[in-house]
């Protein structure tokens, strides 16, 4: 089969690889019909997530048709149309019991690696490094899905297109959880750093959850325009305005009640020298994150407010404004999305027409064009927001 493989920093290549096989009784094999490139795939592309091996199959946002099931699978049947959540969860451990699916205690066979970096391990993730389990991803014609009775949601309504439900695999629930963690009270101001796909869904979800005012911060006008149109957000271009001043103005001096970081480890800073400083340190592995957005989110948040971190981080960060966090009684909430928890309620919101996730899609291409998709997404060429690949 064809699969999009990580071949080194800034190199992906669609190659012929063996078809996946059932390895555990609870596995299913899914023929992928649609898959997408995620902003977090760019962290792999740029080489900032450790423990990648040349030849790893990428991709953690995908859906398709079940073509084979292991003998332990009871809920899925061959022919089912499914969307698969990006974290792999066993459904039997204490974390899964608590619906903390992205912390599944059994799905990462390489937990020892993650323990070295993080103290304890989190769940395995499709196509996302060996410290996240070493699972082949879904930017491929076929993919093996472990614990098939636990993760995938069957889409029975054929009137829903792939594009409408594909983002249940990651970015819609991730953005939604980012907003949900803010415990939004009616009328709250929620600021979102990053107008990429997760930021778009975080902003739209904040509006759905009752925010009075949603403010989105980015530097690309096309991205800000989308947030204004689809989430009714106020927008701030950090290359043009002083973000902290502007946020204070919008909240009569208080600062936003909640701040969502939808940027993560490769953030960009409006000031050239500061950006260069962190980029050099990151390249020399003196820090693993460039956390400009997170720093500004913390500094900007109102006293006693909540900072929700949904952007991906991998290791250590410098110049973390802990004093601001501590002295101003801020609450930090974060985590890889517990996607399995959100599948049904969000599918319901899509079906009822409350939200149509297709608004983020700007590019559609064939799986074999994945390298081009990575390239334009990385460079934000041609107003690229979200690339969907079909097989």
């Amino acid at each position, binding site marked *: 089969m064809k*699969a999009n*493989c990580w071949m080194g920093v800034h190199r992906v290549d669609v190659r012929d*690889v*063996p*078809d*996946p*096989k059932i*390895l*555990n*009784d*609870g596995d299913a094999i899914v023929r992928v019909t649609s898959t997408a490139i995620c902003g977090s795939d760019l962290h792999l592309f740029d080489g900032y997530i450790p*423990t990648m*091996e*040349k*030849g*790893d*199959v990428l991709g953690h946002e995908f859906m398709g048709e079940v073509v084979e099931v292991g003998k*332990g699978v009871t809920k899925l049947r061959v022919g089912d149309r499914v969307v698969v959540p990006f974290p792999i969860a*066993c459904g*039997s*451990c*204490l974390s899964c*019991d608590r619906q903390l699916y992205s912390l599944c*205690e*059994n*799905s990462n*066979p*390489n*937990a*020892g*690696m993650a*323990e070295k970096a993080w103290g*304890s*391990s989190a769940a*395995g993730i499709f*196509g996302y490094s*060996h410290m996240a*389990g*070493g*699972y*082949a*991803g879904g930017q491929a014609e*076929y993919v*093996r899905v*472990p*614990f098939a009775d636990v993760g995938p949601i069957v889409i029975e309504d054929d009137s829903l297109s792939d594009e409408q439900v594909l983002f249940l695999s990651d970015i819609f629930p991730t953005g939604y959880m980012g907003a949900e963690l803010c415990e939004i009270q009616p009328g709250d101001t929620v600021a979102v750093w990053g107008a990429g796909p997760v930021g778009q869904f975080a902003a739209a979800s904040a509006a759905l959850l009752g925010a009075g005012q949603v403010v989105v911060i980015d530097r690309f006008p096309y991205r800000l325009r989308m947030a204004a149109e689809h989430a009714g957000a106020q927008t701030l271009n950090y290359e043009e305005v002083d973000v902290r001043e502007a946020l204070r103005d919008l909240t009569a001096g208080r600062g936003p009640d909640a701040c969502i970081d939808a940027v993560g480890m490769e953030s960009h800073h409006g000031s050239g020298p500061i950006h260069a400083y962190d980029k050099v340190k990151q390249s020399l592995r003196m820090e693993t994150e460039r956390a400009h957005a997170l720093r500004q989110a913390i500094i900007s948040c109102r006293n006693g407010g909540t900072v929700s971190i949904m952007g991906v981080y991998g290791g250590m960060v410098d110049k973390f404004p802990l004093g601001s966090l501590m002295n101003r009684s801020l609450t930090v909430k974060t985590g890889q999305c517990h996607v399995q928890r959100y599948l049904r309620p969000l599918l319901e919101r899509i079906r009822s027409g409350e939200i149509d996730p297709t608004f983020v899609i700007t590019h559609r291409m064939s799986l074999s064009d994945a390298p081009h998709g990575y390239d334009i997404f990385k460079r934000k060429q041609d107003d690229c927001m979200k690339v969907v690949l079909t097989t």
Partner: protein
Amino acid sequence: MGDARTGTPTTSDGAGHATTGDPTGTDRRRGAAERLAKGLGWFSVGLGIPQVLAPGRMNRLIGVDDSRQNRAVMRAMGVRELASAPGILDRPRPAGFVFARVAGDALDLAVLGAALRARGSVRARVAAAMAAVAGVTVLDVIASAKTSRSADPTTGGGAVRAQGAITVNRPPDEVYRFWRDVENLPRFMAHLESVHGQGDVRSHWVARAPAGGTVEWDAEVVEDVPGSLVAWRSLDGAEVPNSGTVRLAPAPGRGATEVRVDLEYRPPLGAVGAAAARLFGEDPAQQIKDDLRRFKQVVETGQVVRSDGSPDGTRTQRQLHQREARPLA
């Protein structure tokens, strides 16, 4: 000491650690050696501080000419003396730093030897200082020999002991039944090829040896408390005498179980064998941790969890040599 055997980590993701040696006699001998080493460490502090702060007075005390040059030498000796102290006082196993003291003594004696012949020295005082240093040297040699011997796994009975703990989301009774059925053990203990029960108490075990081949032995259950404890031991004549205990306790809330495992075995050729096994990548603490993670997977999900990068499931050795995350051919 208190480094290796105290406390048992209890994260739900599992934890393991191992020690080599005989848990009783060796501990006492090592304790005495380390008390001597610590005493010498404090002696270094006591000598080094006046050497650095009052080199002139020290020069006069040991009978050498109190020249500028000699003060500098005395100060340097003091710095050297102080430098050896933290290494000894900070460390649970100070062998290397105690040996550094022996080297420092040799240096002191050489310098004093030169002073003995130098003009302006009071020979009787220098000779007395040399005698004092020689006395300390003897103590240093003894401490260095003892601490390094106690750090060396070839003495101390040659038993390897490894412990680990994990929390599983199943009630103690169920975990007990699973473990009590010894035929289940090879499902998660990577080194076991098979275990066959022969009645309720005895069993026959076949394990893979680190260098290839197999080792077999008979074992018996020696303690059995339903729901909370199973202990077993190999019968006399086993090539690799071994024993183990698993203790079960309810985890706070929710019907989960804390599992604590304690294994001990005597590899062939004692600790030399244990060291040889390490050369083959065998680390008992890591093994028990891996085994417990697989145990949790089997008890909670029914199987060892596999991925393309780790098709055999959790195995630390495998983590160092991952195959790429693409489907197996």
